[in-house]
């Protein structure tokens, strides 16, 4: 018991001293981490036009680096996410957005899945209910021992 106590105490002291004496705490990579995080969040929904299968956040292409810088500048100037999106689509079209905008042309895209669930489950319900009302002779007879 005492051994445990001493050991823990020493580890704690060592831990603290490493925290105090040790090491300079590394500076954040960017001057404003919160802004940087916002920039990355926006960039991760924008498509890199050069490599085309990565986001601007992940791509190493020069254009991606330039566009990230552009987004950063716009955020520093106080622009909203919406304004930044509009800036990008004015220059590159909707292609640059990984989140397709909701427009008449994309209505089917956005509503489709929910509609399919409703239609699918609805159709299943109707079919099953209709079946449950059919006469017994439409079905196969039960085996006496098969129900689990």
């Amino acid at each position, binding site marked *: 018991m005492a051994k445990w106590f001493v050991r823990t105490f020493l580890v704690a002291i060592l831990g603290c001293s490493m925290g105090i004496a040790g090491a300079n705490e590394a500076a954040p990579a960017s001057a404003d981490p919160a802004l940087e995080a916002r920039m990355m969040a926006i960039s991760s929904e924008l498509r890199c*036009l*050069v490599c*085309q299968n990565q986001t601007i956040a992940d791509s190493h292409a*020069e*254009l991606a680096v*330039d*566009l990230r810088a*552009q987004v950063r500048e716009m955020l520093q100037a106080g622009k909203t996410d919406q304004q930044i999106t509009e800036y990008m*689509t*004015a*220059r*590159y*079209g909707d*292609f*640059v957005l990984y989140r397709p905008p909701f427009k008449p042309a994309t209505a089917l895209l956005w509503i489709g899945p929910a509609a399919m669930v409703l239609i699918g489950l609805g159709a299943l319900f109707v079919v099953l209910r209709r079946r449950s009302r059919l006469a017994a002779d439409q079905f196969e007879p039960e085996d006496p021992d098969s129900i689990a």
Partner: protein
Amino acid sequence: MKSLKFLIPMGIFLVLVLFLGAGLKLDPKEVPSPLIGKPAPTFALARLDDPTQTIRRDDLLGQVWMLNVWASWCVACREEHPLLVEFAKSKTLPIYGLNYKDQPAAGQKWLSDFGNPYQASLSDRDGRVGIDFGVYGVPETFIIDRQGVVRFKQIGPITPEVIRTKIEPLVRQLNG
């Protein structure tokens, strides 16, 4: 009829095949320009050959002109360049160059090595004007009309066929 519903999978599939077939002729990587039919972005850039002089978008109003985006580091531009030099001789329309993300010295050397079809080249060192024009791959070429509206964009090198079938007819039409 009850049996008709069994044809639904087939029906949906055939429609799908039609679209997939159509898709074979398209290029999923090509990004059409949203600028067509809209005013060209404003710019004010230094001339490549004389940095003390600035050319603005509005300086170029009143004429039909071509903007060709190029760079000395761009391999595909070398392919296109002789064609442009030749085309410039026909004086169909004035060609201005946008020297995109390049060192002015390198750019000037490239022009002196390979010929200069441009009335003037503009120095876009940080690529901002390129971004405003929606440039994503060099070379790219735009045609802008008298009112400063973008009418045409070519992504990738210009070919003789593009000149013949698209550029020349368009310029004739825009010139009235």
